[in-house]
């Protein structure tokens, strides 16, 4: 069947990203390597323009015989991915132009390719399309992780190849695992359409396939016990990329998990205990290992593992309220974590490292930056009137209503532990004197702009969470099938 014009309506944004990629290649050819910063700036701003466009375009519809669907769910995630990409590019402008002056455009191209895979992903209703999108999202990340190579002029980031290799090996192995599981699912159900899997979802082979998919995706999202690459990769890679890596691919992993497990297989009895165990272990181990970290990137990495555990809680009930929570948490995670990592980038840019010592006395050197970091930390810790509070609250509420009382108690204790290590950073920034040789921080426009957006998001949505909650609820309702719809398949 030939695709018709109507097929392209839900894909409008993705074509926009594709056009951006092509024009960036062209721009690089015509303008040369020197104009990399301009190209990056326009790429980052274009992503934000596309983000604004999602609010004005009608992206609903179905394309390619139902293999691709545009609805509130996919639009919500498209916005998150566009925002993450835009913030990472804008936040990385100065880093890229200073450290890789001769290969700037390629950096943005890689980010954009990954973003394209991501924006396509949430609409995919076919297993093959899902895998293709997921790999389009994942492969550029390997390149970006290794981007610093070893020839960095100032001798830092020499661990980039190690970081990239870890990410690569884990990524490839987990893809293989996921594909293996999907092959079982396809073999037993005879269909690659996610919506039709439900009808055949009773065989043990399909359950086993689901377990393999879950394990494969758990590597990607860095849930315990598949988390060991996270801290090393974050530490070794360049920070603007880490800001992206810590957020967007994780969310993409959750999207895939939601598509296969929730909508496809409706989390069977075997996967549910696995999910509970993984969530609980991630919450505990992530938060405990973060306590003694002295490198802020590693600290945020382990705290991220703990957050992943909280998000995983959504899949245990898997109903509309818990998917709402997933979406809300996702949005909170984007603005908070990217913001926090970009502050780390600002420090690393000036100091050359991102240990706790580098943060000492930040309040005297750059009060605005210290304040921003404090807000991000409070949001990560889940303190009222910043967005992270509502996110954590919805997790607990959804889990409580699903009867997972003990996990709520565990999460509440973990939140206190979390506050302890977030306070370590706050303590360094506010209570320690600045190092004698430490100068004022250099001003970086792109970075400042990106951090300001994150800060505004964290505070505004923290004070008025209702609109975002509305959006998330609508998106979840469009994704989670009601009992009647399930019967129809």
């Amino acid at each position: 069947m030939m695709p018709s014009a109507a097929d392209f309506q839900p894909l409008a944004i993705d074509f926009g990203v594709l056009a951006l990629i092509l024009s960036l290649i062209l721009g690089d050819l015509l303008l040369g390597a020197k104009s990399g910063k301009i190209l990056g700036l326009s790429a980052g701003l274009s992503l934000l323009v596309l983000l604004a466009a999602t609010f004005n375009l009608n992206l609903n519809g179905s394309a390619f015989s139902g293999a691709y669907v545009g609805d509130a769910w996919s639009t919500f995630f498209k916005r998150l991915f566009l925002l993450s990409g835009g913030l990472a590019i804008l936040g990385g402008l100065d880093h890229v132009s200073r450290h890789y002056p001769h290969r700037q455009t390629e950096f943005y191209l890689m980010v954009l390719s990954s973003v394209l895979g991501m924006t396509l992903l949430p609409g995919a209703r076919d297993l093959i399309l899902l895998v293709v999108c997921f790999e389009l999202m994942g492969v550029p990340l390997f390149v970006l992780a290794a981007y610093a190579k070893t020839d960095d002029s100032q001798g830092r980031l020499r661990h980039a190849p190690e970081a990239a290799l870890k990410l690569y090996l884990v990524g490839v192995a987990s893809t293989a695992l996921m594909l293996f599981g999907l092959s079982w699912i396809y073999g037993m159900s005879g269909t690659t359409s996610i919506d039709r899997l439900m009808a055949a979802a009773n065989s043990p082979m399909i359950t086993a396939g689901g377990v393999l998919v879950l394990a494969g995706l758990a590597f990607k999202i860095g849930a315990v016990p598949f988390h060991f690459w996270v801290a090393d990769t974050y530490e070794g890679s360049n920070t603007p990329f880490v800001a992206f890596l810590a957020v967007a691919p994780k969310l993409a992993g959750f999207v895939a998990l939601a598509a296969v497990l929730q909508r496809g297989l409706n989390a069977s009895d075997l996967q549910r205990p696995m999910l509970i165990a993984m969530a609980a272990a991630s919450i505990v181990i992530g938060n405990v290992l973060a306590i003694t970290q002295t490198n802020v990137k590693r600290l945020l990495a382990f705290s991220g593992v703990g957050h992943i555990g909280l998000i995983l809680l959504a899949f245990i009930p898997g109903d509309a309220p818990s998917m709402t929570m997933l979406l809300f948490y996702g949005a909170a995670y984007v603005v908070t974590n990217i913001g926090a990592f970009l502050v780390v980038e600002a420090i690393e840019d000036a100091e050359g490292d991102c240990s706790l010592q580098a943060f000492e006395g930040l309040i005297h050197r750059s009060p605005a930056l210290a304040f921003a970091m404090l807000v991000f930390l409070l949001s990560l810790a889940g303190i009222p009137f910043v967005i992270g509070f509502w996110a954590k609250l919805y997790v607990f509420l959804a889990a409580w209503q699903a009867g997972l009382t003990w996990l709520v108690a565990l999460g509440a204790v973990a939140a206190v532990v979390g506050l302890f290590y977030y306070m370590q950073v706050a303590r360094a920034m506010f209570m320690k004197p600045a190092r004698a040789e430490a100068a004022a921080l250099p001003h970086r426009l792109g970075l400042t702009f990106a951090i300001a957006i994150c800060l505004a998001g964290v505070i505004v949505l923290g004070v008025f969470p209702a609109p975002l909650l509305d959006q998330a609820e609508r998106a979840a309702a469009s994704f989670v099938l009601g009992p009647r719809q399930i019967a129809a398949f």
Partner: protein
Amino acid sequence: MNALPLLGIIVAAPAIAGVLLLLLPSRARLLVRFTALLGAAIALSGSVVVAVRYDRLLGGFQMEERYPLVPKLGIFLRLAVDGWGVSLLLLTGIIIFAGVLATWTLKTREKEFFIYLLLLVAGVLGVFVSQDLFVFFLFYEIAVLPMYLLIGIWGSSHAVTEAGPFRYVWKVLDIGGREYAAMKLTLMLLVGSAFILVAMFALYVAAGSTSFDLEHLASVKYDRSLQLWAFPALWLGFGSLAGVFPFHTWSPDGHASAPTAVSMLHAGVLMKLGAFGIMRVGMVLLPEGAREWAPLVGGIAVVNVVYGALSAMSQKDLKYIIAYSSVSHMGIVMLGAATLTPMGWNGAVYQMFAHGIMTGLFFALVGLVYERAHTRHIPSMGGFAKIMPGVAAFFTLACLSSLGLPGTAGFVAELLVFVGAYQSAHSWWALPAILGAFITAVYVLRAVKTIFWGPGPAEKFVDLSDAKKTEWGALWILGAALVVFGVWPDLVLSFIDRATPDYLSAVLGGSK
């Protein structure tokens, strides 16, 4: 005039003043101070207006305001005051106004200090007027958190004496005395918050997941099993802030390390939030749980009273004495609450008020003495009355109120609680409570004697001065309040008494 959102203004004024401070340059030191004072003044004068406008004949909740926050989950910013709210608002207003005056001479990073301080006060005021459990919790958290920075940055240093497994963590992270105190306080209170959060969800879900409104939650009859586990969760959660034994250990360290205004606010008002939470949320929403657990609550409160007093007696550090005396006095509040009698409850709330003012005065004075003498070690002081007669007079006044001398606010409160305890089902509670008051007399009089009236002053202290300018303001406000509310307790007690029967009948309703 009805349209004026008075309660909203009271809560928002300090927060807005804080935001304004953010915009001021930190070089404008006088402007910074006056902005902070203005925020505090609006809160204080607003509270006075609320007290004047509150119709005591009508009773109940008045001056209601309602703003949607997250309507989907049934969360509304509903503000209203009843008799308890009026009196505690008044207390907070007085303390913050005096607190800003008392820290007028702060010299390091004042702008930041006042920002956190005002934020904290906005949280405290919010707790006292919010009628939605969720908003209550929000404000409660806001009131607890700035404390970390306030103590960690402006606190006074001392060595950490911690032993055991935590010693390793402190060593690895290189944590000093005030940071240790700040961290201990924050973490202990947040563990408490976790308990509150869990109990709050349990109530919300059990009440049909439609609304966090306190009135709605109070109208539901909860299962006995839920009541029996949720009440202790709330008791321990709020109790960690109220200094309930054995979760009081953050309080001596925290209060001793904190700067003057923060100690004033924390011991004077914040600990009351905990007791207020136990009574307003724990007991009123979970009457059956409250009745079942009352013997333990009262028993622990008695331990608080006596243990706190004995600990205070063995201290040589002036701030630790006052801090432990707060633990002891908060025990009296909890004891009053546990009696479940009108007298006891009136006494508990009045003790919150009286002790708040008294301990505020104490910490203001200790701050003054420490700032001049640079020591808090009591044996090395002596004869200070000759060089700072004003401070000595006010200190003696605070001491007299602390030990419950008739004519001071402390007397009224303690008398009410003792009578309430005697009338309750556990009359024996009155005995150790009175013993506590006796021990209090021993340690405060001994401290006063040594510091102010003993031989001396030593040569290095001869040049010390008395209180100055704004400090006088703080001392006079607090000292006058102690006497006025001691001689004429009805000024506040009439408000408290208007609300107590309603709450108490809710708690006792089922048993009669």
